[in-house]
């Protein structure tokens, strides 16, 4: 390889240990997956609460939730993540100081998860709300007529019936959060993007390292797409009509 004759060979660059950056990239990818998975779960929880709240109230709660979803979906993710990160850690430290514990170092990973989850929650709310609304009213009325309580109705009828409707949207949100997780590098949390940047900064092998990192991101997204396709086929078992598979 004439091109890289002067530099460390490729396999050394990507190897495990002191010589290479394979381990750094690997742990970066693990962190990316971790904050994505937990942020996604947090977002889903917020989204479920938000969707139910939006659908079951018309007053102040619905207005507040509308404000949350509109504002969080209209703002650029990069700015929102920076704002939430700084505001969140400041607020927590303020709280700790108030209680008298003194300034604590908020774990970067927890902050990243909370920030990503809060952004994701706004998008999840809208996806889940639309999916719940698409459940035929007759099914819910039938459950009501059978004397099911509100909670039982939601757990047994609404939730399983809306899941196939929500899945394409939820798949998109998962793909988005794996990509948006790279923005957490802007506030200094070492996930795959920042780990790559640091490795490239030291070794000056920007091209190879960025291509490798992108290959990892691509592997994550392609695996996810296949997984969600499988899940949708499974959830739509027994439904009539052609199965829409991406």
């Amino acid at each position, binding site marked *: 390889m004439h091109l890289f004759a002067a530099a460390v060979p490729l396999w050394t660059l990507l190897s495990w240990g002191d010589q290479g950056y394979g381990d750094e990239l690997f742990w970066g990818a693990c962190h990316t997956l971790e904050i994505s998975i937990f942020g996604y779960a947090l977002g889903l929880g917020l989204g479920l609460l938000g969707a139910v709240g939006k659908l079951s109230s018309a007053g102040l709660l619905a207005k507040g939730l509308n404000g949350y979803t509109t*504002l969080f979906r*209209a703002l650029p993710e990069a700015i929102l993540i920076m704002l939430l990160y*700084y505001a969140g850690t400041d607020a927590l430290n303020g709280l700790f100081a108030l209680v008298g514990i003194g300034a604590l170092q908020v774990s970067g990973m927890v902050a990243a998860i909370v920030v990503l989850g809060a952004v994701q929650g706004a998008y999840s709310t809208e996806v889940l709300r639309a999916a719940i609304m698409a459940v035929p009213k007759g099914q819910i009325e039938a459950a009501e007529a059978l004397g099911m309580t509100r909670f039982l109705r939601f757990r047994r009828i609404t939730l399983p019936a809306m899941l196939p409707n929500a899945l394409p949207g939820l798949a998109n949100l998962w793909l988005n959060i794996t990509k948006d*997780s*790279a923005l957490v590098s802007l506030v200094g949390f070492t996930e795959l*993007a920042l780990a790559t940047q640091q490795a490239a900064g030291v070794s000056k092998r920007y091209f190879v390292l960025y*291509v490798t990192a*992108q290959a990892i991101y691509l592997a*994550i997204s392609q695996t996810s797409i296949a997984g969600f396709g499988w899940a949708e086929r499974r959830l739509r078992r027994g439904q009539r009509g052609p199965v829409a598979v991406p």
Partner: protein
Amino acid sequence: MRWEWLPDYLPALAEGLLITLEVLVVSVVAGFALAIPLALAQVKGGYLARKLAGAYCSYIRGTPLLMQLYLLYYGIGSLFPLIPGARENLMWLIRLDAIYYVILAFTLSFAGYEAEIMRGAFLSVPGGELEAAEAMGMSPGLVLRRIWFPSAFLKVLPTLTGEVIGQLKSTPLAFTVPVQDLMGVAHKVMQDTYRIYEPLLFVALVYLALTYVIVQAFGRLERLVPQRRSV
């Protein structure tokens, strides 16, 4: 909240806003133009063209824009010293302002997302319309220009608002490679004044206003197009 820095930086912020708008408009227009051949390659192209265009879209949609930008800005530049003669002949490329890399990266990204949408729109145009045009003796190029593209474009028009807003929401990433766009100037304010929230909030407000303007403008554009509204 302390805003006394604002008057000093207002001219720079205005210039930054112009750069942000420039990046947005150029990347949307050029990206859309690039999306058309990418979509056509997937719909009508041969095996190789279909696979290549599909792989390109998967790559763009499957990796973070931030990484794509870094690859172009840092990655390509880092290859030059390895190519003999590049230092002399390609120096202009290295000296090129970061904004060109930003525009290129955002254009390529928008093209990837939009091609996927245009692909669906091209496929959804009824085959009979295209056959009729062919039967009238139109050349493939003329069919595309007069029938296929206009019809597909009208179909994507409602989704275009969302796509353009999505692209607008990506523009702050320009500040990560040194570009003095709106976010870049705000970042400089943060470094100069040690204020964190005020510059970020200011930029957030401007972005909200821009989103509102885009929604209104595209709403007007959509109303210009006559279409059946009842279901």
